[in-house]
């Protein structure tokens, strides 16, 4: 018994940690591994756990370097552009709206401030069910279906309460003395915001911007409804479509999946500390 316990102490929680890593990373490893081998190897029984033989021909096909996948390469490339424009556009619009409003909420005097703030934050609790169909019908009435602008508008409205909340907390953590000094020197509120608050909050604004971009990149239901052709379909919709065709080889499909997951994945790795802080801020108390 004593022997067992000391052995247990030496091993500690290493097996548990190994399990956690296996559970988190195995699917991603498996997608990457499949995309880096031939179809014959990927579909072999029993499964091979390393990419042998190793090939990057799937990525060549996805980028149109190989003629075999020219059609898919065109769709996939275009959808990556669409995703970038839509997530990027939503990011810029969201941050513009969120910075100005968060500043007003954090620092300026306003009537009904509490009510407006609570109502805006309250919309975070609305499930997609509540808004999907009317938003589609409004967009279609305005001719904004299948346009970048329509998707960007829908994303912005969905993301801006969260971004505003993140920035509001950040602005409140900045000491007010600096802004008061600016006010004493005769700077207007707007000037104070642009010259002092925004530069001081650059890290907060950057993390809100990256979280917004990630949210945009990972959207599926709204773009599925709001876009129906390649002029605006983002990469998530195209990956689902390639999967649904049932004829695209798994090796190519996993290459597409890996590329579609890469931008938010890389952001998550770089921004890990900030994301952890941002996501856990409310959970402690």
């Amino acid at each position, binding site marked *: 018994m004593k022997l067992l316990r000391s052995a247990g102490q030496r091993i500690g929680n290493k097996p548990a940690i190994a399990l956690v890593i296996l559970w*988190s990373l195995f699917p991603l490893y498996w997608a990457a591994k499949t995309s880096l081998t031939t179809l014959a190897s990927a579909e072999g029984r029993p499964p091979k756990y390393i990419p042998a033989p190793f090939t990057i021909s799937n990525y060549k096909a996805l980028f149109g370097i190989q003629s075999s996948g020219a059609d898919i390469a065109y769709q996939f490339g275009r959808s990556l552009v669409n995703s970038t424009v839509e997530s990027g556009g939503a990011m810029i619009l969201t941050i513009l709206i969120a910075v100005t409003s968060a500043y007003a909420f954090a620092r300026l005097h306003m009537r009904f401030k509490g009510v407006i703030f609570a109502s805006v934050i309250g919309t975070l609790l609305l499930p997609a069910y509540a808004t999907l169909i009317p938003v589609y019908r409004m967009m279609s009435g305005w001719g904004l279906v299948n346009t970048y602008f329509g998707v960007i508008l829908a994303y912005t*409205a969905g993301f801006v309460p969260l971004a505003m909340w993140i920035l509001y907390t950040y602005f409140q953590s900045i000491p007010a003395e600096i802004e008061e000094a600016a006010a004493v020197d005769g700077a207007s509120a707007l000037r104070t915001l642009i010259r002092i608050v925004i530069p001081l909050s650059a890290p907060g604004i950057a993390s809100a911007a990256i979280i917004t971009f990630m949210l945009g990149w990972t959207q599926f239901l709204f773009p599925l409804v709001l876009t129906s052709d390649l002029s605006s379909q983002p990469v998530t919709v195209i990956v689902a479509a390639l999967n649904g065709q049932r004829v695209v080889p798994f090796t190519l499909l996993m290459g597409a999946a890996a590329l579609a997951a890469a931008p938010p994945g890389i952001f998550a790795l770089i921004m890990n500390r900030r994301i952890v802080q941002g996501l856990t801020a409310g959970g402690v108390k």
Partner: protein
Amino acid sequence: MNLTPTVADDSAAGEVTPSSVSSVRSRRSRRFRLRGSGGPGLRAGALPYLLVMPLVAAVGVFAVYPTALTTVGAFYEVDPLYPRHFVGLQNFRGVFTDPTTRISLINTLVYAAVGVAGATILGLAVAITLRRRFRSRGLILACVVLPWAVPSVVGAVIWGWIFDPNFGVLNGALTSAHILNHYYVWLGLHRFLTVVLIEVVQIWQIAPISALIILAALQSIPAQLYEAALVDGAGPWRTFRRVTIPLIRPALALSCVQALVLSLNIFDQVYVLNYDATSGSSLMLKTYVDTFSDLNFGQGYALSLTATLLTVVFTVTLLGLIYRRVSY
């Protein structure tokens, strides 16, 4: 923060208000009024409202107004080609009598139950595993967060390949280990298994948030409480039950609520892994199909309203059950 003392002193010495000089510290937390004037045409008090207007417009037009439309539309027969007309509760009768809708409703309840329990228990296990500081913990936390960042459609496509009946690694690994003697069709054959496996895919993506929330709470428990428990002769299990769990209840509540809302809304994973079959269908998928394939907008609105109310009622109930204010 590069706040040089001279700047702060200047502002304190300047003639703002007499009280500001006396206590700098109290002003730190106080909200103050800045002059809101921009130029000659702008009234002094208008600026805050102008700054907030785009936000209110965006949220009003694309969140509040659509929710109102959904609520009203649920009581109308809506066809894109004809003017809508009032039908009372007829759309809701469709929701509760149509057998495929009932399957979706029951499935959604199973998705939610499995999702809430799975994400929170797994999150708790991961948080306990990573509670102590060690050298590579930051790196491991980054790995834990990674599935959350993957688009859920992409995650579902990857898991679809893992579950594949002919070439999937799940079949391959289980037959190599002689747990299965033949390759098995995991999705679409058995309804309950399909729902649970699709929810596993969602748990893979949402459990990281639960883990982070619970980890933050675990780390804020003072060590003295554990020492006191040890002195009182409490074993590990008793300490966990009587000290840890009560103190992380707010985090557990938050974890459950985020898992609940996400699993009641499950769509992407079901769309990818079980699109054409009703066996795994969820309310959100059913709403999508009714509305955008069958063009029955009224039915879609009624389903949406039912699901929204379900979400609100469940969230409030769950919070009431789990959330307790803690102080230590």
